[in-house]
Each structure stands twice: as structure tokens, then as C-alpha cells.
């Protein structure tokens, strides 16, 4: 086996030194009746070229060369080549969690930069080293609000990504945390009146997403005021991180839970991605997950360490703020490199291209005869189209044109009929937008 660095004589010599006759002597602690005395029934060993062929065949069975018009929590943005070039260094991807700071300063400093940039972008004061993803991050953010307020209910907007809400439901179900849901108005934004009525003196937090699942940007300041008036916190979930390049950050929020996939992370059929939780300094001791802090060594030299770990499971066990152990360090590094490549001007330029393409697409779809819902509300790079035809059928006809159409809403929002949420990024050409609009029109 080519990954094993020992010759048969090495093995024999080692067994001899241990004082064993055969390797199976070392497995004697396993009761005989449970020892596997046959080969596992899995395919034989493959040569490297065969492995590559197998996965090339699988890759060929997936969509290739399509113009992707779905966002809905996973955004198709260009990934600068320096990302993979850098993260392919073994020092990044074959290292472990930086528990030994003297030989982990690379990972630690990069996480410190990640935390800093997330603060700059979100307008929050502290950010953690990352969470699994946006959906579990949103659930953890709600649990954090429960700890801070001592209240045990949460209100979620039903314009939050439906799969985020499903994950939150799973997390909340067994923690004695009742959830209530608030709908949207004709403008595709949270129904503020209904929200106001839903918040009680038992509400720990309100969770909204902005831009929301329809692509509409919420009025965070107004919603924060309503939540705060009743002593509840506001948690803002951001699924499309690139929106922060051009949309005002949700500074009025108490906790921001962001999915950072847009920042250079491959779509990868849904993962791995990287969530992150950012918040106000006063809540830092309730934040879940790892944190990196700056300090000095014995000679006064600047360096970085994992810190405030008394919140975490390996110290606190059942009293920890969360059971989370792994974060998404390598994915956070991808996003860190992406944010560095684009930086202050580039994130803005890139976001503006998305805005322009989306604005063009909206008029192209309208011109072609499709109905745009929530038309007068501000949006970033997603919009909802209503058609006569069933959205799935429509998407089937677009496949021939090498177009993957918008995400059909019927399953989660049956009241919207034949509607789908479409996404346009810098990677959708005018030509593809025109073709999609023509196909989606009457």
C-alpha cells in the first residue's frame, strides 16, 4: 500500500522488538468472536490513474459548462487562482488546530486577520474563528442570544433561508426553545407589524436574513429598534457575504451570523463552507467556537494564541457554550485570501458588478414578459420571477440552452405560485442573461 512507509522486514523487526509473533497478537484485546476474519466487501485497491478516471467520470455526470442562475445560499463567484495555490501548501492544509502556538503562528495570525476583516465588513466588534456554515451558525447565534438574555423564545422571519430554518428547528426542538415565525409583506420584506406583535418579554432574539431569501434587503435599523424596544436581541444572518461590498453593514444588530462561501469557496455541491459569528464586545464570553487573540511571548514579541477557551467543550464539558470543536480553518483561510485579494476597493467593484448585472437581468426578464415580484424593494443579486409555467418545467426547457434556472419557491412558499428566485453574479454574461430571460418569458 503506497501510503504506508514500511517494508515487510521493518514490520517483522518491530514485532520482534515488541515481543509479538504476529500482528494479530496486537489485536488480541478484541474478543475473537468480533474479529473480522474476511476481507471487507469493498472494491479492490485502485491505481492512482483509475481513481482519477473514476472521479472524472462522476464529474462528467454532473452539470458542466452551464450558466448558473441559482444562488439561494450558495453563490457562484470567481475564485482567484492564488487561493488554491496558497492553501495547497502542506503547512496550511496538513496542520492541526493551533493548540501549540510556538509552531502554529501561521494559522493563528491568519485567523486573527480573518476575525479582523470580518469585523471591518460586518461593523461588529469581535468575530470568531469560524463556524461549520451559515445554517448551523444561525442556530448557534440564537442559542447565544438565549444565554445572554436568559429568555427562552425566538422569533424567526420566514424570509430566512428555508434550510437554515430547518436546521434551527432541529437545534431548538430539544432545548425547550419555542420558535415563532413571522411572514413578509407585499414588498418581500419582513412584515414589521406582525414582527412587533410576535415579540414578547420572553423573546430572546429576532432572527432575520439580509439580503433575505428573496434577495430583498431588509430595513435592519427599523427591525433592530422594534426588537430592542422589547429587550430582545437582533440576530442578522447574511447568506450572500459579497453584499457587504455595497450594502450598508447591519451595525444595529447584536449578533451577525454570516456564511462566507461567496468569498472564494467552491460551490462544491454544498460544502464545506464557512460560517462565522460576529458580535459586540460585551457579548464575547457567550460566543461559541474558537477565538484567536494577540499577546506577547516571554521576550515581549507579538504573537497569537487561541484564547477564552474556558467557554469551550474541552474545558467546560457539559457546561460549555456549544459542543462545537472543529471550526472551518482551511475554508476561513480561503475567504481570508479572497478578502485580501479584492480588499477595500475590489470587494466594492465586484459587488457593484453583481448589482449592475442583476439590475440588467431584472429589466431583461420583464421585457421578455416575466413578472418580477417585490419589484420596488432594494435588492443585491437575487430576484423573484413569477411565470405562467411551473418553475421546474421552465428550468427543464432551459437545460438545453445550458442554463440552470432559478430556485423554485413552490415547496417553501406555495403562496407565490410558479415563482423562482434567480441569482446573477459577475460570472453570468449578458448573452446568458438574455437567453435566460427569453426562455423564461412568455
Amino acid at each position, binding site marked *: *500500500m503506497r*501510503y*504506508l512507509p514500511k517494508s515487510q522486514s521493518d514490520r517483522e*523487526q518491530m514485532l520482534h522488538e*515488541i515481543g509479538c509473533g504476529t*500482528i494479530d497478537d*496486537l*489485536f488480541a*484485546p*478484541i474478543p475473537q468472536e468480533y474479529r473480522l476474519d474476511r476481507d*471487507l466487501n*469493498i472494491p479492490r*485497491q485502485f491505481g*492512482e490513474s483509475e*481513481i*482519477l478516471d473514476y*472521479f472524472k467520470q*462522476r464529474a462528467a455526470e*454532473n*452539470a*458542466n459548462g452551464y450558466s448558473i442562475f441559482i444562488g439561494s445560499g450558495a453563490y457562484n463567484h470567481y475564485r482567484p487562482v*492564488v487561493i488554491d495555490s*496558497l492553501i495547497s501548501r502542506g*503547512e496550511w492544509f496538513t496542520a*492541526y*488546530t*493551533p493548540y*501549540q502556538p*510556538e*509552531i502554529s503562528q*501561521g494559522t493563528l495570525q491568519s485567523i486573527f486577520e480573518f476575525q*479582523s476583516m470580518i469585523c*471591518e*465588513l460586518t461593523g461588529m466588534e469581535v*468575530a470568531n474563528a469560524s463556524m*461549520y*456554515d451559515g445554517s448551523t451558525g444561525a442556530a448557534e447565534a440564537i*442559542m447565544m442570544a438565549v444565554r445572554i438574555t436568559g429568555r427562552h423564545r425566538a422569533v424567526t422571519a420566514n424570509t430566512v433561508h428555508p*434550510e437554515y430554518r430547518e436546521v434551527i*428547528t432541529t437545534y431548538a426542538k430539544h432545548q425547550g426553545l419555542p420558535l415563532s415565525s413571522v411572514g413578509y409583506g407585499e414588498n418581500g420584506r419582513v412584515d414589521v407589524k406582525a414582527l412587533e406583535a410576535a415579540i414578547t418579554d420572553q423573546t430572546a432574539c429576532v432572527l432575520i436574513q439580509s439580503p433575505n431569501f428573496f434577495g430583498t434587503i431588509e430595513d435592519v435599523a427599523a427591525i433592530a429598534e422594534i426588537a430592542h424596544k422589547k429587550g430582545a436581541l437582533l440576530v442578522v444572518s447574511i447568506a450572500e457575504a459579497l453584499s457587504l461590498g455595497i*450594502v450598508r*453593514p447591519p451595525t444595529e444588530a447584536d449578533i451577525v451570523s454570516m456564511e462566507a462561501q461567496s468569498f472564494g469557496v*467552491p460551490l462544491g*455541491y454544498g*460544502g464545506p463552507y464557512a460560517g462565522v459569528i460576529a458580535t459586540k464586545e460585551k457579548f464575547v464570553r457567550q460566543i461559541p467556537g474558537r477565538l484567536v*487573540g494577540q*499577546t506577547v511571548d516571554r521576550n515581549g514579541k507579538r504573537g497569537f494564541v487561541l484564547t*477564552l477557551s474556558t467557554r469551550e467543550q474541552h474545558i*467546560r*464539558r457539559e457546561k460549555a457554550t456549544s*459542543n*462545537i470543536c*472543529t471550526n472551518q480553518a482551511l*475554508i476561513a483561510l480561503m475567504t481570508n485570501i479572497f478578502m*485580501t485579494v479584492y*480588499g477595500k476597493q475590489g470587494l*466594492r467593484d465586484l459587488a457593484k458588478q453583481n448589482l449592475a448585472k442583476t439590475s440588467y437581468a431584472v429589466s431583461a426578464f420583464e421585457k421578455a414578459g416575466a413578472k418580477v415580484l417585490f419589484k420596488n424593494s432594494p435588492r443585491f443579486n437575487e430576484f423573484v420571477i413569477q411565470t405562467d409555467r411551473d418553475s421546474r418545467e421552465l428550468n427543464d426547457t432551459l437545460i438545453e440552452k445550458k442554463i*440552470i434556472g432559478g*430556485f423554485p419557491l413552490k415547496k417553501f412558499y406555495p403562496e407565490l405560485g410558479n415563482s423562482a428566485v434567480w441569482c446573477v453574479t459577475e460570472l453570468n454574461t449578458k448573452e446568458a*442573461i438574455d437567453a435566460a430571460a427569453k426562455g423564461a418569458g412568455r
Partner: protein
Amino acid sequence: MNDKIKKVSTHVSQNEGLIFEKSSPGKKAYKLAPLDVPEVDEKALLGDLARADLANMPEVSEIEIIRHFTRMSTWNYAVDYGMYPLGSCTMKYNARINEVVARLDGLAGAHPYQPEKLSQGALRIMKALADQLIEITGMDAITLQPAAGAHGEMTGILLVRSYLESKGNARKKILIPDSAHGTNPATAAICGYEVENLKSNAAGMVDVPSLVAQMNGDVAALMLTNPNTLGVFEQEIHKIADILHEKGGLLYMDGANMNALVGKTRPGDFGVDVMHLNLHKTFSTPHGGGGPGSGPVAIKKHLEPFLPKPVVVENGDGTLWLDYDRPHSIGRVRMYFGNFGMHVRALAYIMANGPDGLRMTTEDAVLNANYIRKKLAGIYDLPYNTPSMHEVVFSDRNQARKGIKTGDIAKRLIDYGFHPYTTSFPLIVPGALMIEPTESESKEELDEFIEAMKAVAEEAENTPEIITGAPHNTRVSRMDETAAARKPILRWKPRAAGAAE
């Protein structure tokens, strides 16, 4: 440097500040394609919601970025540099083919919501991995959705909970041995269970009489790591399972140490009802500096209706689809389908090994741990004499007499060119040194490690001050962690002070 330090020499390493310190206005590392649609005015489109500027985000050029991240990378230790004997972490070689196939366009570029008929390759990979993990564990069904080990634990305990609820009573408690990982009790707590500690016996295994005494109708499950965190196989595992089952409880196995078992025995055969795997341990997906992981949960048939949705299902014609219509499901634990990129890598690893390679991998992992044990026992105190599987736990008892603790020995090991073992865990061994070499080490590397450990033990006798001051040859010396926690500095701020926006 002394002449016993053979693995490393010091060399010049580059200094590098924070990226913000290299930034100046107008520098760029990107060039967008020209916009092929009309420009827009964001103020007109967004009004008050338009962002004024991006505060203190950096502005640097491409070459500076390459140097920045390359220089920082050289400050990390890595499996690619050498042995990384962190107990319970299974720091094995990360094969390059795994990285190549995960980046193929049709896989890396697949949108999770693209139609199922355009996702057959991805679904086929998930199905193949699921089938093979089921065979490897001897279980009946699996979900690949959990994003990491602890997330798998949560999924597994929610499955237990839903199953018991369907029987009429979710019960109140989870039993957890005192040797368990911290994630186990934290998981039980977030799933709404009380944690009850179960003590270990003199051999380091579950104390069966205690289990009998503590097992009753309030106990939902026992969370057991096997081999446990001492690297010891629970020899009475089936009896343990029977005790739980007789009173209607379930056996949860934490699969963190599955690297000791693959191809030699199967948890499904020895009575486990539900278990998680860590693809980033046993199945070689890279640790990445602390994630991403992947924590599939394998189960016996009776738990199958409760699996997270969706599940991959095969049609009569061989095509695959996603079944969301699962009325008894615990629900979702993560959006989409889990860390698919890790599923690809794990499958590539299994294919590269085949049944013979996987078995030999396990054998080499156990051989390596026992070789270290044989060579270091006596020099380092072995608190439990029970046979070791894939890892061995010593204590610092011999060295503590001179005031040298496990953490000090670990720091000195850095000067010898090795990443430290896991310190101070499991908690049942005071001053623990938990060593897991994995199968990826050659005899030569193991011998160098053993020599280094012996040399440090000698220093502990003769020149303890050199150990308490270690590491001496690193970029930074021991960090002031107390100061870091007392007055946390968790982000860079511009010198002029003031918040971002």
C-alpha cells in the same frame, strides 16, 4: 541546539506583519472582466442602504499576498514536515490525489440546488461512500450530513432521542465515562439530556458493575469511545451493549478512534446502535489547521426512519434522487448535504486502499503505537498496563518529581523537531502524555521520536531548566496566554483607534 537534536536545524525564517500593515491606497491584486451591461448608480438603487466605504479593508498587490501567506505558512508545523503524534486526532498522511479529484470542475463547481438529473455524479459519490462506510462499520444505514465529529455526536444523540420518543419516553440521562472527550458531555447537554459520569475500572475500561448499578429506565444511552481515550479496547463491549439493551437504552459509539478497528472488527457486529465517524481522522481528509471536518453517523436499522433528511435513494433504473419525504426524520442538521468535498476525498482514500490496504493501515497504526510503548515504557510511567491499540497514554509521574510536567515535555519536544503529543488528556490520567503515531510513520521517524523522548527524559533528570524554558528554537517562545485571556485583543485596529463604521 545539542547533538541529540537530529531531526531539525534552525534556519532563517521570514518575518511578516499583519496584512493591514502592508496596505496602502491604490494597490490592487485583482482585475475584473469589463462589465458587459450598463453601469448602475448604487445610490439610486439602494438609497440609504448603500455602503459608504469599506473601512479598513486592506489594499495590497498579488505578489505581496503570495509572500504574506507563504511566509506565515512556514511558521506552522504540519504532517508534511513530520510525525504529528496528537493522541485522538489521527494526524495521518493526506494523499494528494484526494485534493486533485475534489477540485475537478464538475464536482467543485456543482451547485447544491442544480437539478438532480444534473447531479448524478455527486449523488453517485455520496452513495458509494455511504455503502462502503456501512460495510466498514457493519451498520445498516448512514447519513453524511453532519459537518464534523461533534456535529455527528449531536445528530446521533438526536436519533437516539427520536427513537426513544417513538417508544413513548425520551428518557433523561446519558451515561458518559470519565475518560470521554469533552464534546460528549457538551453534546448530551445541548440535546437536552443530563450527563451522568461513569467511572473507569483499574484496567482503564468501563466498570461493568457500576454500569449495571447506574443503568435504569432513565438512561437513554451510553456514549462510549472504543478503543477508549487510553487507547484500550473495551473487551466487555458486548456485555456493555447487552446491559443497555436489556433496559431499553442504546449504545452510542464515538468513532474518533476508528483508525484502530477498520478491517479488523466492526462496531455493528459488537452491539453498537449508533456511531459517528470522523472522516478527517480515519479517512484522511485534511485537518486544514482545524477544519473542515466531516462526521457521518452510521446506525442500525431501528434508527433508520429518523435519519436527517434528505437521503439519497436509488430508482429502479439506477438513477439517484434525494428523498425529502421522511415524516419521522429528526430534521436537518446542516443545509444541503454536508461537507461534500470531504466525502469525495474520503472515497478516494478508501479506493486507494481497498480491503487489504485498509486492514494493513490499521495494523501499522497499532504496530506503531505498541512500538513506541515498548521503547518508552519505564522511562515514562505507564499508568495502565492494559494492552494498547492505536495510541498509548503515559504520565509525567517520573519527570514530575523534578518539577517537569507533561506540558513542559511537550514544549521541549518542539525543539527536537516534533509536534507534541496531546497533553493532560484523558482527564483520568494526571499529567497525561497521549501519543498516537498513526500508520503514516516509518520506522526511522519513530526511532527518531523515541530518541527525542528519551533525550528529554534525561534532560528532566539532569538539566530541568532547559525544559522549563523550552521551546528555544522557535520564532516565538512560550506565549503569555493569561494576558491574552484577561484583556482580549481579538482584532486588529488602526492606530488612530475608533471602530470600523
